[in-house]
């Protein structure tokens, strides 16, 4: 199962290590630990994390706020500031980067859990940008090429390339992947807006398929991994045209 990948940037080793324990304990993966901003930039490129936790004070010339600006401009993932600075000028500088979370030291496990959940929700809300659509609790979040869905207390990562199709069932959606079927609470209409349209297309009122996963198709049905999915007249032309080009 894919996990949410976290980058930790903190120049105090004991603190970084305890943060790693907590993040792993919560069920996420730590893909890198950096003590300098420049080092963090390299890890962002190499490891493609889904979320970063940034201490504001770092070793070297550049600080965590500079790093946040780089992430916002080039990497577009949510990040959380971690700091023992509570003074107004630092906070204001940090706030200017519009962070997805701000954690004050000392932190505990519960703080990290809450901060990650909040950061993901904030990120999704910023992405949607239409305040009317902001749900009270976000059950599904898109970061780069993956969907993150909440499974109990944990956000589970579903990279787009592992998603076969999505089926609407009442107020819920079934997301079918290679290995599993997962349920989330959402309408298909809202959900499809978040997905990249060159990969995910509607085949039927209740079905959205990953066009790259379609194994065969006929006039009224298509097949993905032994699932037979109906094609309705409304969507047929556009879908078939796309499938023909693949």
């Amino acid at each position: 199962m894919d996990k949410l990948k976290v980058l930790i940037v903190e120049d105090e080793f004991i603190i970084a290590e305890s943060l790693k324990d907590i993040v792993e304990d919560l069920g996420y993966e730590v893909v890198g630990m950096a003590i300098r901003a420049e080092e963090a930039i390299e890890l962002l490129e190499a490891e493609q994390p889904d979320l970063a936790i940034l201490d504001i004070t770092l070793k070297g010339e550049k600080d965590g706020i500079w790093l946040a600006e780089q992430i916002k401009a080039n990497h577009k993932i949510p990040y959380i500031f971690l700091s023992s600075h509570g003074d107004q000028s630092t906070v204001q500088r940090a706030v200017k980067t519009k962070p997805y979370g701000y954690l004050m030291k000392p932190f505990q496990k519960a703080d990290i859990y809450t901060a990650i959940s909040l950061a993901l929700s904030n990120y999704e809300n910023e992405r949607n940008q239409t305040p009317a659509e902001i749900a009270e609790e976000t059950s599904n979040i898109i970061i780069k090429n993956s969907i993150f869905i909440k499974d109990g207390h944990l956000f589970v990562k579903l990279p787009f390339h592992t998603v076969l199709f999505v089926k609407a069932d009442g107020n819920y959606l079934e997301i079918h992947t290679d290995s599993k079927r997962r349920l989330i609470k959402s309408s298909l209409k809202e959900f499809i807006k978040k997905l990249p349209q060159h990969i995910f297309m509607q085949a039927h009122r209740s079905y959205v398929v990953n066009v790259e996963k379609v194994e065969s198709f006929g006039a009224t049905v298509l097949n993905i991994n032994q699932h037979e999915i109906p094609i309705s007249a409304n969507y047929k032309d556009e879908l078939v045209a796309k499938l023909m080009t693949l």
Partner: protein
Amino acid sequence: MHRILLATLLLLLSSGVHAQSHDSATGQLNAWQNYTLIGGAIVLLGVGIIIYRSNKAKALANKELAEQKRVIEQALEEKEALLKEIHHRVKNNLQLVSSLLQLQSKKFKDPEIIKAMEEGQGRVKSMAIIHEMLYQNENIINIPFKSYLQSLVQNINISFGESANDIKVTMEVPDVAFNVDTAIPLGLIMNELIYNCFKYAFDEKQQGHVNISLKDRGADSYVLNIVDNGKGLPDDFEQRKSKSLGLRLVTMLSKQLEGELAFESSEKGTSINIWFKHQEDH
């Protein structure tokens, strides 16, 4: 000032010279006039020199004052920067302590030990909030008690996660600020009592309510009350009081605040009173 004096002096002298060449018949009178004028001029010159010197001294003193002011201001700025740096260091070190507890707890599987380590971290945090407030506030000596309590309750709420959703905390606390010697023990006491409330006072699914009130009794003494509508204290509470670290902390820290502690309990809930004194600054 100098210029006016100088101008007057020149005027007097020139009018004297002018008078001399004017008329010899009235020579004596003129001579007398001239002496007067010259005398006046000398007096004026003297006065001018004195004023000039005193002005020069004043300017010098002003310059010195300005310099002193600059030095004091700079020292004050340095002091504030140092204080901020110290609070930053204190908080970072408290984080280190918390992190060490966190790292150590990884070794254990026993949930009771893990819980104990978490409680230890909670205590560290209750102290850190005080430094946080000292650091953020202009008034760097005293901690506003109400906002402290709010942060503390929020922190405990977070650490209990979703199981704390049904517990409502209200406060009746006046605007008082305590110094560090009072706030640290008081904060630790509050941390233990509120934590215990969240942990033990309520049955699942019960709508819990906790009220915290503080009353000023004059002469630097206060009474703090925490009351809940939970299931009351257990029968073996007296025994537990001597064993549990949390309750031992509450007992000893009340003593440190020259205070007294009283528990009252029924099936309608628990009420805890602490009488204490605002400690003198060291």
